[in-house]
């Protein structure tokens, strides 16, 4: 292969016009992914982006990579096929809260437990955008949408907990309106060898405007979220003066000084799970950043290793070997 040239974010722009609503959070994720890919040192032709159906899933068209805009909910399964068939490729899944957690929920949890080496970016806008505003598996209870005119009755998933429960090796969260944070998270995901699950809070200006604003607006963001950084203290607040202290399965607010250090590589997913429970406490900041990052053999790697091992033992089989087994007989 020829010397790798340094790619730029704009190299990843395809010739297709981007067709999201003006103001949609999807734009910033597009830029974030383009910038991240440019920096990965992977040849451009080795990227494959697979998506399902939804506003978010139109993503591959806008990327100058190989791509498939597949069918609703199946991106993870298709991407699994791509990656296992050719582990040299850098495979990315783009999905939405409907695509990836509703109809595609099963493929999602299974690809996480199998630890297929792919980056899964879930655009969570807590609504079905493309079909114009029905509730999704992340829509809060009570919310009125087109299919819940009297208020939604379904308790939502916490995507982080679902991923942890499925045995994910990498789980992270970021937001559309903080490109810097998003880039760090996407880079960490890109560097993870295995299935990387990234929830991105994404604003749908048309059908669910402001769903995350109580946590993401500049004015409140530092108070209402805490950025988890591996090996660093969990600090938050406008003046970065507050911290989180973990005491057993309880997490408490303390001074920045007393804050505990965050470790996403803990042997057990327990601490990350406990941390994600903060989402349910209105008095606590919501955790952002990398909640979990551990290493475990990937499915694709193991498949190829096994093919290699069996071939090593049995020898490469020829067409002749395949047909002419030892129980043949001759008619003369």
């Amino acid at each position, binding site marked *: 292969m020829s010397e790798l040239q340094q790619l730029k974010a704009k190299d990843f722009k395809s010739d297709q016009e981007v067709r999201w609503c003006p103001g949609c959070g999807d734009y910033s994720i597009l830029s974030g992914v383009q910038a991240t890919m440019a920096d990965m040192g992977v040849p451009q032709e080795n990227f494959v982006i697979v998506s399902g159906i939804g506003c978010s899933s139109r993503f591959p068209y806008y990327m100058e990579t190989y791509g498939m805009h597949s069918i609703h909910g199946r991106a993870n399964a298709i991407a699994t096929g791509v990656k296992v068939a050719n582990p040299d490729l850098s495979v990315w899944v783009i999905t939405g809260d409907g695509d990836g957690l509703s109809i595609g929920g*099963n493929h999602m949890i299974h690809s996480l437990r199998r630890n297929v080496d792919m980056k899964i970016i879930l655009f969570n806008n807590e609504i079905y955008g493309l079909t114009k505003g029905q509730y999704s598996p992340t829509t809060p209870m009570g919310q009125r949408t087109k299919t819940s005119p009297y208020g939604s009755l379904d308790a939502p998933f916490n995507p982080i907990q679902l991923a942890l429960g499925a045995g994910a090796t990498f789980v992270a969260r970021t937001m559309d309106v903080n490109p810097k944070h998003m880039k760090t998270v996407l880079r960490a995901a890109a560097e993870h060898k295995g299935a990387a699950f990234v929830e991105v809070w994404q604003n749908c200006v048309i059908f669910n405007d402001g769903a995350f604003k109580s946590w993401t607006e500049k004015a409140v963001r530092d108070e209402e979220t805490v950025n988890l950084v591996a090996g660093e203290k969990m600090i938050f607040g406008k003046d970065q003066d507050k911290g989180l202290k973990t005491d057993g399965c309880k997490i408490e607010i303390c001074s920045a000084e007393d804050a505990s250090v965050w470790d996403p590589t803990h042997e057990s997913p327990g601490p990350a799970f406990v941390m994600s429970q903060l989402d349910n406490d209105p008095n606590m900041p919501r955790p952002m950043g990398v909640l979990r990052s551990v290493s475990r053999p990937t499915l694709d790697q193991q498949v190829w290793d096994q093919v290699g091992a069996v071939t090593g033992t049995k020898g490469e089989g020829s067409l002749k070997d395949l047909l002419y087994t030892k129980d043949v007989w001759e008619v003369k």
Partner: protein
Amino acid sequence: MTIRFAGDSGDGMQLTGMQFTATTATVGNDLATFPDFPAEIRAPAGTRAGVSGYQIHFSSRDIYTPGDDPSVLVAMNPAALITNYKDLKPGGILLVNTGAFTESDLKKAGLDSNPLTDGTLSGYRVVKEDINQRTMEALADTELSKKDKLRCKNFYTLGMVYWLYSRPLEPTMEWLKEKFAKKPELAEANTKALKAGYNHGELLRLFQGHYEVPKVENAPKGTYRNIMGNEALAIGLVAGARLAGLKAFLGSYPITPATDILQHMSLLKNYDVITCQMEDEIAGICTAIGASFAGRLGMTTTSGPGLALKTEAAGLAVITELPLVIVDVQRGGPSTGLPTKVEQSDLLQAMFGRNGEAPIPVIACATPSDAFDCAVEACRIATQYMTPVLLLSDNYIANGAEPWKLPVIDELKPFPVEFATDPEGFSPYSRDEKLARNWAKPGTPGLMHRIGGLEKDAVTGNVSYDPENHMKMTEIREAKIMGIRDSIPTPQPHGAESGDLLVVAWGSTMGATRAAVERLHKEGVTVAHLHLRHIWPLPQGLDEIFSRYKKIVVPEMNMGQLARLLQSEYPDYRFKKFSKVMGKPFRARELKAHFAEILEEK
């Protein structure tokens, strides 16, 4: 010659049947088999629901079916006897294990009186033998538990049958040795039982006759192997990928009776095969689509209910024009239906079970060894035309066995795929003369492109909502599939060149149909059998063939699905339906009787 082994599913009848088959094949008889086991993993021992059967038909002439009614029936218990004896030919031999005819055995089989004594079996040559007892005796000085000893009774029985048909014991003794390599005491006990049974037959001359089936006289020269349908299909898929110059990728989910294909391919890791058992059928086909996108040959195997689940994704493969082989091993429906029985009722689902105009070629295999050829053919069409292909098999083929004259490797014609590599003027939807689109795989510099489920511009492959373009693409997709006709031969009728009756069959009805037609033809009737391997597109030239016969009938193990298809395609002819939906294959005899009736009508 047809023999059927029937017993409780715990009695090892499948094993017995398979051993008999293997041995029969090695002595050069032509044969066909048909196992029939219960849907329950383990129905209560001794009940009718627990009966498991295995039928084998062998002869020195070419044979096409596992036989009509058996002329020998082995019944290991009352339930097996009562559910099977009616099929026995009048005057046929019935070997009964009287050791399993206690009061309680009879009760388990739901019998009020003993069929061995109440006159039920008049008209058959009944051989009563306490096989349990004989086996125990034979193994008296063996160090095994009573239960383990009793387990050897199927080999005792096999020994008796071997004697009846003058079969050598060696192949089975070899097999036992290998099978129980780690438990030599079991190998020894079973071998003892086998020999004892054989000797018992010989010494006591229990049976009236002693059959010797000569070797097939004019079997074509070549190397043969005994093969079951699912295994042939698995090997065919791997061979097909190789002939396309590709590596096989199977994404699947277990389902009876297709699971064996996945299981067999899982063993072939040293043949560049990757298999993934996925979380469901949808994931199975989707990984295969992904693998094809990445440049392997994607495949997926299933049965009817699984095919139903795959249809949405099959449509994606149609519009993205990726090669893909979808195998449906048909079973009894609707819904879960009769999972361990045979039926041909997925044909119209295969044809039309997708949203929108989504044409897919359909191929059906006829016999276990034909499954190999059809699998290769499916791979050829998939890769040469950039299309998903539906390959239909069924439970009868899947679990049936026959001797297979192996193709000479050098005579297998490769059909290598050429991936696009040149960025100059590349477009993912530009086409060759067969209308197959370009295939550029990820990792190729300069050919980055996006495909997907939305309608594509005919030139650039970009999303297009243009009305004229949609019409054009719909027509191209149809024309591409119809163009496959140019690469398939016109099948020829077997029998009379023209005349009173043409029997059109597909899939596993092949054998019984061929046999019935041959018999009638020999009797002087101008009848012929036309077999269709390609269901869609239908080969060219059928019109002309149909015109040569006065009547046409289509026997099917469904309510007339191929007949319906043919009727809509060839309205100038009338296609009579002949349906059997009983979870069992046609018998040559019933077909022959029905054909004779048709000939007499008006």
